């Protein structure tokens, strides 16, 4: 019925997005993409540090603060603050992540005066009222209790704890029930200014606002925060611990959740781009990856199986996972290991590399079709130290990857076959 579809020529042009660099009178810098066809403004920003700045005995501090900044600020208590957000349909929120403290604002452009005022208050004058602290702590503890027997959450926490013992990355981002229960307002007031300092601040704005106006608003939002001092980037990634080990956490469930980790590459490693191609071939998001074909399609072992490169600020992992029947968990893990070993010894085929490059290049515009997505992509670029020029050259860098590059990286990442494996469930024959 249909003729074979022609293979289109690789179009390596970057997304047609004009990024302006806006600088306030006080020296605050933001990237701006003006988009006036909809009456919306999206602001995305992040402070360097995040959960990794939690004191060792106070895990979950940054996460608690992220839940409290919109619970009252300045003269407004929580009810008044959230009432103004609701009355103007303003979306404002914060999230503490492993390496940064992230915030976003979404507003109709007609409500931007109120929206920017509330954001400024939240950043500069959080109240941490006793009732709000108790309420948000109760919510976090309830969430931790909900996750306490959740195989996915348990497995994820176990993986980080085993890979990074004694390091902030090894602690759960939300803390644990004991650590969260101990957190009180004075310590939060003391920690907040160090979490929200300008040293590693990155700001992206997309939407219905012009550069001059944005420049005039930035100082009121961010100018009053402490200057801080930049954290140096480590020269080499912190090595993962526990490689070669398999740990099983017993849980009475019919399915075993598995997560594995091996060494990855830092974002600025020259091999990061070919490593992305390699990962796509192994366990990327398309329905064509080797793990998808071998674990799901051929053997029906799991609903989902995937892998991804996870560059952190101080370390780097290649992580993956699946969830599979207890009595076939060992078989699933064996198949995964074999695919990694095959890539290390034989490498992928030329065709796989070309198809992976096509996917990675062709899918790039899909990341830029809404304002929050554009803002999020640009913020990620900014956080890893890139400039907006990356948009124009990114696809060319992928197009230049050769089979030899991918084979070299496969040897580098999978040549030494030790993985850290964490499993939660009642797997048969896994450990």
């Amino acid at each position, binding site marked *: 019925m*249909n003729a074979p579809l022609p293979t289109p020529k690789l179009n390596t042009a970057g997304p047609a997005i004009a990024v302006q660099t806006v600088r306030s009178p006080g020296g605050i810098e933001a990237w701006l993409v003006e988009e006036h066809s909809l009456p919306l403004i999206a602001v995305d920003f992040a402070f360097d540090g995040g959960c990794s700045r939690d004191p060792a005995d106070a895990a979950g501090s940054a996460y608690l603060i992220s839940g409290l900044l919109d619970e009252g600020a300045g003269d407004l208590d929580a009810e008044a603050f959230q009432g103004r957000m609701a009355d103007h349909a303003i979306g404002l929120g914060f999230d503490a992540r492993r390496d940064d403290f992230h915030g976003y604002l979404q507003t109709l452009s007609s409500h931007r005066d109120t929206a920017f005022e509330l954001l400024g208050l939240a950043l500069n004058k959080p109240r941490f009222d006793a009732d709000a602290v108790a309420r948000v702590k109760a919510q976090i503890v309830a969430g931790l209790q909900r996750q306490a027997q959740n195989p996915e959450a348990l497995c994820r926490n176990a993986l980080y704890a085993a890979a990074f013992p004694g390091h902030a990355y090894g602690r759960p981002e939300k803390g644990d029930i004991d650590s969260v229960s101990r957190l009180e307002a004075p310590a939060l007031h003391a920690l907040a200014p160090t979490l929200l300092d300008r040293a590693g601040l990155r700001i992206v704005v997309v939407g219905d606002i012009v550069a001059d106006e944005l420049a005039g608003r930035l100082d009121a939002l961010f100018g009053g925060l402490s200057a801080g001092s930049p954290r140096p980037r480590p020269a080499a990634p912190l090595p993962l611990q526990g490689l070669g080990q398999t740990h099983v956490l017993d849980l009475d469930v019919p399915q075993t959740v598995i997560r594995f980790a091996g060494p990855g590459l830092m974002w600025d490693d020259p091999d990061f781009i070919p490593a992305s191609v390699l990962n796509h071939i192994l366990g990327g998001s398309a329905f064509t990856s080797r793990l998808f074909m071998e674990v799901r399609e051929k053997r029906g072992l799991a609903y989902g199986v995937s892998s991804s490169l996870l560059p952190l600020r101080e370390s780097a992992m290649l992580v993956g996972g699946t969830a599979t029947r207890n009595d076939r968990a060992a078989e699933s893990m064996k198949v995964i290991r074999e695919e990694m070993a095959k890539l290390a010894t034989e490498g992928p085929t030329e065709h796989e590399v070309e198809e992976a490059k096509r996917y990675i290049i062709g899918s790039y515009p899909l990341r830029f079709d809404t304002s929050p997505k554009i803002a999020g992509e640009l913020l990620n670029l900014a956080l890893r130290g890139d400039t907006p020029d990356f948009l124009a050259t990114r696809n060319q860098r992928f197009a230049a990857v050769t089979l030899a590059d991918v084979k070299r990286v496969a040897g580098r990442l999978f040549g030494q076959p030790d993985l850290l494996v964490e499993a939660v469930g009642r797997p048969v024959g896994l450990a």
Partner: protein
Amino acid sequence: MKSHARQTGLAEPVESFRLDNGLDVVVVSDRRAPVVTHMVWYRNGSADDPAGKSGIAHFLEHLMFKGTKAWPAGEFSKIVAGYGGQENAFTSYDYTAYFQRVPKEHLRAMMDYEADRMTGLSFDESVVAPERDVVLEERRMRVDSDPAAQLGEEFSASLFFHHPYGTPIIGWEHEIERLNRDDAFAYYQRFYTPENAILVVAGDTDAAEVRRLAEETYGRIAARGAAPVRERPIEPEPRASRRVQLNDPRVQQPALRRGWLTPTYTSGKAEEVFALELVAEILGGGTTSRLYRRLCVEDEVAAGASAYFMGSMVDRAAFQLSVSPRPGVAMATLEGGLDEALAAFLAEGPTELELARARTRLVAETVFARDNQASLARIFGSALAVGETVADVLAWPQRIEAVPREAVVEAARLYLRPDRSVTGLLLPA
């Protein structure tokens, strides 16, 4: 609270038309990025599964990726991936949908393929068993590993004790295990027809282009003569309050949900459904809502409180409230607080401020939805799949604005009564 965000006043019009073979088409133009979202919706979902074959709609959705005569298994996924596209599918109670998101120049290829897959599905017995195992693993992941999901199944089965909305979309395990190739093909041949489908294209295109491409692709499929008929039992009006309780040693954070049956947008009682959208937002929409303020902030008995309502269903909708206790608070205390807060709302109705805030938030959601072509495609596709129209979707914000206070009070009093409610309790062993 999750609501069915709608959109309004798009910069370019939403256009819809019907091909000669009965296929409905909706085009939403958004020229900002050079990408398109291509979706085909079928007006059949898990509620159309034959008795004893629960899960067949969802299983067929999986099998739809097993190839056609023109494109054997995996071939089209390779093509989509080579274009940098994303693809997937999902099954709900009333519909099944397939989509690809691709750079705009590949729209024609997606339409070629999806048109081929509407009638050309072809696979042999060898792929059926592994794919059934995949579905069983999916069920183990989503349900068997999660006591809250297990309670959810029992809760729905109590809310709908006759209608198939009470059966899980993915199916019951013992029935999934017996689904086979013949079941799948019988179901496919009954429902996968142009008269039963809706094509939605959103993104960097326009109606003229989509019409031309659709006629060249989907237009070649022969009409069957009439759309298949959904044959479903009718849920009776409930006469008793019901309680479902699940105790499990894995539960460390208890939870309570309460649900009521309500009409849908297409039931002839749309006015009540618009009012219920506002009731849901007022009771459980975010941290300024009635229940959150009362239970989480003032009484300090709840960690969370929220409402869920989705009036876009074919036969009957469900209105749900969910609360969870603060650590150390007894469930009976929390339930007492919920009962009181709800009774007070039914007696007094909303304040003017609560009503104004709810209208503002619901209407603003529709403006935010305009930023996302994939969301717009889902909004129009799901609306048409349950029997609403493009005009209904476009008029939604104005209809919400126009609901009078008395209608909100009356709808709440009519439907959110204790004597027709289902309460679900998730508790430790």
